């Protein structure tokens, strides 16, 4: 599917990721609400999926053969919306209405009203089950599409994720790829202190996944690992994407406090200056 990635392609993807980060900051500043930390951490993953890996077309958004993406960590909605706008599913102007009364850009992804959203989410731990259902449908109908599911490292403290992980492997969903946005922080503090989910690699392996580990903020590494997951047979893939919460805005990086807080005007200007 994908031939040669040039240095120029990589440079363009990096610019795109930066645009998405600017979109995220625009959204949470305009809405004075949202979750910038976990949105910024997954911006590179979304960039590689939506601009390099996934078979999607904003002009054929209901194509039954398109690849699917489930944002299980629905609170990173700002990242998904910025990505979809950047990819042309709707106008970037919409981003300013994020979380506001009457906006289609609801606090958490709403598949019924937002073009390009494949599954509603928000209540944590539920996305992988839905992704499994999509992957099973792809196989039943021999459509050959792939399904990507992004989960948070804190999110997978939810029991349903592990129920679903069992199913992914039981049904040999090799058209499924789970990405763990391993930014190591959750609302109450470090994941390892609040409720330790580690070691992740061993856990996922024992559940039957082919597990990959990458720097989740590195575009080159992400492209290479997603390519590898496409060759896995008879089992689902999982990518542990080691990321930095708040990545790209220095004062938000690795700060628990920026999980669910909007910047004030000064902070907004500072963040945009860094991203420009």
């Amino acid at each position, binding site marked *: 599917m994908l031939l040669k990635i040039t240095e120029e392609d990589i440079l363009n993807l990096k610019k795109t990721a930066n645009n998405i980060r600017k979109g995220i900051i625009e959204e949470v500043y305009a809405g004075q609400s949202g979750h910038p930390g976990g949105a910024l951490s997954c911006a590179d993953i979304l960039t590689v999926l939506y601009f390099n890996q996934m078979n999607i077309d904003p002009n054929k958004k209901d194509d*039954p053969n398109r690849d*699917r993406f*489930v944002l299980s960590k629905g609170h990173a909605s700002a990242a998904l919306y910025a990505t979809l706008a950047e990819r042309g599913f709707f106008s970037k102007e919409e981003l300013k209405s994020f979380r506001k009364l009457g906006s289609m850009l609801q606090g958490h992804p*709403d*598949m*019924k009203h937002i073009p390009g959203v*494949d*599954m*509603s*989410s*928000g*209540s944590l731990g*539920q*996305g*992988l*089950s*839905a*992704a*499994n*259902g*999509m*992957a*099973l*449908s*792809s196989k*039943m*109908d021999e459509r050959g599409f792939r399904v990507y599911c992004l989960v948070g490292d804190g999110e997978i403290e939810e*029991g*349903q994720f592990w*129920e*679903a992980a*069992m*199913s992914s492997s*039981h*049904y040999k969903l090799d058209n499924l790829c789970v990405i763990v946005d391993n930014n190591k922080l959750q609302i109450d503090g470090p994941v390892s202190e609040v409720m330790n989910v580690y070691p992740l690699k061993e856990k996922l392996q024992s559940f039957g996944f082919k597990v990959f580990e990458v720097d989740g903020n590195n575009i080159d590494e992400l492209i290479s690992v997603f390519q590898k997951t496409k060759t896995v047979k008879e089992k689902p893939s999982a990518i542990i994407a080691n990321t930095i919460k708040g990545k790209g805005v220095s004062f938000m990086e690795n700060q628990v406090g920026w999980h669910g807080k909007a910047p004030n005007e000064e902070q907004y200007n500072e963040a945009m200056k860094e991203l420009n």
Partner: protein
Amino acid sequence: MKEEKIPTRQSYGEALAILGEKNKDVVVLDADLAGATKSEIFKKAFPDRFFDMGIAEQDMIGTAAGMSTCGKIPYASTFAVFAAGRAYDQIRSSVCYPNLNVKICGSHAGVTVGEDGATHQMLEDINMMKALPNMKVFCPSDDTQTKWLVNEVSKVNGPCYIRTARLASPVIYDENEKFEIGKAVQIGDGNDGTIFAVGICVSQAIIAQEKLKEKGINVRVVDMFSLKPVDKEMILKCANETKKLISVEDHSVIGGLGSIIADVLTENCPTKLVKLGIKDRFGESGKGAELVEKFEIDSNAIIKEFIND
């Protein structure tokens, strides 16, 4: 009403297999209870479209939601307590909020589950399911109606909850009886009272109706199988035409059939309603037939309401 008794869960399984033949988009999921929910009948006919999700109801509902986004019509089957109870948030967030085309069958509802006792006797599911936006809620009373319903909801584009029972109950309707979603079924036209009933309680109401007739009391029975949408016109008609209103259900009196009727009456023509059901308590072990008597949702309990009046 016929002598023949069939549990509505059996009717569900048989109807699924027939529907599966007609509609290739229909898929069935179960959570290790295929033998009990009778979804195994579909499994035998269409093994490639049957998915056992193991003892993991939350995952089952989420998987069904994902399938429905790809054009499938999933019927997710398990005991009512594990569907509506265990997987409530999955039904709420992954099915009802996105208004997905998932059919949920909660079997073994009510105290008539019997010997398994309180943990397995779901008495709050009508209340929980009816509160969810986009959800339609049904509790069929016999074999004929259940079979019709399983087929009919496949034509509804959106979430539906079907509540069935373990206990065998009499066949009430002829094969060619016409039903409609949102329309209750009136049985008899007595004016001395109305017995609104759902599920296994409809046959109990018919028995009471016959016995009361012998005593010169003429009541009508109204099968309220469509709990949401509910037949408001029928409720108001009966309130205007009959002297006494009773509701009877194998469900808590909090938030079930009685509450649904009371809501309609309160807003339109405040009328006294006697609610027979489980009175804010858990069930207990026993035989189904013993429990309907103990919890006073049987024909004798209904008759008492008219005789002692």
